C-alpha cells in the first residue's frame, strides 16, 4: 500500500513539475541523461541511424476523435498541459478554414500544402511516417529524409555565422543552427516562410515561427523528439510536442518521390504557383 501511495505521489509531483516548468524539456532532462549514449569521434552523442515516428501525429497534433480514415488519438502537445495548441482567436478561425479545405483529395483543390507535395516544414517532416537517416560529421548533422529525398543540414559548430536576415532568406523548412547540450542535440530553426502546416488537421503558423527541436537518445533504439513552437503572431505562448522515434534496423532509407506519385496517378502538377502567407 505504501508503495502504491508513493507511486501516486511521484506521479503527482511529476505532473506538478511538468505544469510548473511548462516547457517540459527541463523536467525531462534527467530521464534523457539516465542513458549514456555512444559518442562520435568528435565527442558528440551518436544519434546516427534510421529513425521513424510510428504514431498518429501526422493526422492531428491535438487530441481528436476518429474521422473517415483517421484513427482517434490523444495528441502530442505536452505543453500547455491541456494538450491544446494556444491559438489566438483569429488564428483559430484560420485553422478551421484550413481544416475545411482538406476535404477534396484532388491536389489542385486541397488546401494542405503537403497534398501538393510541397516541402512539409519543420517539425512536420519528422512525423509524417517516412523514415529518415541521421548522419553526423564533426561539423554537420545531416537529416536525410526518405520522403522526396529531402535533406536538412544542421551545422553544429561555432564556425557557422548566425542565420541570415529574414529579408534575405525565407525557407519552407527554415534555417537551422544546431548545438549539443549534454546528451541532447538542440536545433534552433528560424527564417520560415510560413506556408507549411504542422499536420493534416490544418494546424499552422506564420513566418514569425521559431522552432526549437531537441533530439535525445533514451536508449539504443529510442530517440526522443521534442519541438517547441514560438510565433507571437499566431499563438498566445510557446507550445511543445514530444514523441519517441524508433530505430529502424532492417535497411537504410529507400525512396518516395512525392511528385512522381502524382505523375503515376495521372495528375499533372502544373497548377499556378500562388502562395498566400497566412492572413490573420
Amino acid at each position, binding site marked *: 500500500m505504501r508503495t502504491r501511495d508513493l507511486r501516486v505521489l511521484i506521479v503527482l509531483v511529476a505532473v506538478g513539475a511538468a505544469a510548473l516548468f511548462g516547457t517540459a524539456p527541463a523536467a525531462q532532462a534527467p530521464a534523457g541523461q539516465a542513458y549514456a549514449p555512444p559518442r*562520435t*569521434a*568528435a565527442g558528440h552523442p*551518436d544519434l*546516427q541511424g534510421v529513425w521513424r515516428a510510428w504514431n498518429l501525429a501526422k493526422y492531428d497534433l491535438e487530441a481528436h476523435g476518429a474521422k473517415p480514415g483517421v484513427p482517434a488519438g490523444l495528441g502530442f502537445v505536452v505543453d500547455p498541459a491541456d494538450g491544446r495548441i494556444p491559438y489566438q482567436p483569429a488564428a483559430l478561425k484560420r485553422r478551421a478554414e484550413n481544416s475545411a479545405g482538406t476535404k477534396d483529395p484532388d491536389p489542385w483543390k486541397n488546401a494542405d500544402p503537403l497534398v501538393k*507535395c*510541397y*516541402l512539409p516544414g519543420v517539425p512536420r517532416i519528422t512525423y509524417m511516417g517516412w523514415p529518415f*537517416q541521421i*548522419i*553526423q*560529421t*564533426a561539423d*554537420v548533422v*545531416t537529416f*536525410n529524409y526518405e520522403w522526396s*529525398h*529531402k*535533406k536538412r*543540414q*544542421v*551545422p553544429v559548430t561555432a564556425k*557557422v555565422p548566425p*542565420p*541570415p*536576415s529574414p*529579408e*534575405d*532568406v*525565407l*525557407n*519552407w*523548412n527554415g*534555417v*537551422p543552427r544546431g548545438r549539443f547540450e549534454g546528451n541532447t542535440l538542440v536545433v534552433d530553426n528560424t*527564417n520560415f*516562410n510560413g*506556408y507549411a502546416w504542422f499536420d493534416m488537421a490544418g494546424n499552422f503558423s506564420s513566418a514569425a515561427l521559431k522552432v526549437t527541436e531537441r533530439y535525445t537518445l533514451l536508449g539504443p533504439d529510442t530517440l526522443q523528439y521534442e519541438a517547441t513552437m514560438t510565433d507571437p503572431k499566431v499563438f498566445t505562448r510557446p507550445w511543445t510536442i514530444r514523441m519517441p522515434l524508433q530505430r529502424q534496423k532492417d*535497411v*537504410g*532509407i*529507400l*525512396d518516395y*518521390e512525392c*511528385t*512522381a506519385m502524382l*505523375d*503515376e496517378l*495521372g495528375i*499533372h*502538377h*502544373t497548377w*499556378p*504557383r500562388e*502562395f498566400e*502567407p497566412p492572413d490573420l
Partner: protein
Amino acid sequence: MSTRVRFLLSTAALLCLVALMTVPAAGQGGRGGGAGAEGGRGGGRGAGVPPAGPIPRRADGKPDLTGRWDGSGGVLHNTVILEDHPGGFGIQSGKSLIVDPADGVIPYQPWALAERNRRRDDANGYEDQVGHCEIYEIARLASFAFDIAHASDGNGIIHHTQHITRVIDMNRRQHLPDGIRLWNGDTIGRWEGDTLVVDTTNLNAKGRMALGGDFYSADAHLVERFTMKDSNTISWTLTITDPKVFTRPWTMTSAVPMARRPPADNFDGEDTCHEGNVDLVHLKNVYDQAHGKGGAATWPPQYVQPPGGTR
C-alpha cells in the same frame, strides 16, 4: 517542332531548374539573397584551395575523399547530351563523356536507340523527371558540384548533390532483394586498393540520364570508381552493364577530372524546386500539342521496354 525550338525549350527548362535549385525560396515571393549550399557555381572557383599534395589518408589508411568536388568543368551541357555534340541552339559544344567504346558513342541496341531518340524529341521533353523536380540520375549528378564526407560511423559516404544525398553502405556486401526498385538504386561500396568502388543495382528505370533521353533498364548494373590522383583531384568513371539495352558494357567519365573546390560554408539554402516550378506548364503545352490536349492517352509516360521485359 524544329530541333532549334527543342533545344531552346530544353535549355530554358534546364536554366530555370538550375535557377530554382540554387536560389532559395525562388518562386515563392522570396527575396533572393543568400547563396545556396548547393551547386557550387562561380564564386572564385579554385580560390581557397591549397596546392595539390599527396593523397590525404584516413586513420585506416584509405584515401580521405572529404571535401567539395566538381567535375563539370564549369558548364552544364553534358546534362543535355552525353555524346559529342556541336554547339548552337542554346548549348555549348561538348566532347563525348564516353571513354569506352573508343568512338564515344553509347552502344545502344537498335530498339533502344529508337527509344532514346523518341525521348530526345522535344514533344516528349515533358517526360523528363528532372523537369518535374524529381530525382537526378547518377550519371547526371556527376555534372554538378558535390560534397563527399566520411560519416563518423565509418560506414557511410555521403554525396550532397543537386538535392540528392547518396549514402553508400560500406559494410553490406549483398544488394537488396529484387523486389525493391529505387530511382537511384541500391548502392553499396568497397575499396579496391585506393579506389572507392560504388556498386548500384535495384534500379526502377523511371528516370533518364540526360535531358537528351539516354537511359538504361531496371536490370542495369552501375559501377562507379572514385580514384584519388592527388589531394585536389579525383578520377571518376561509371561503367554500365545492361544486356537488355546495350550491345556491350560502356564507360563514361566526368567532363573534367573532379577538382577540389572550397568547402561548403553556407547551409542557409533550401532544395526547393517543385514549389516554384512554373516552367513545367510550358513543357506540358508542347507535349499536349504533340499528343492531344491533356495527353491523357500517353500520361504517365509509356516507355518502350526491352524485348522480353526486365525483372
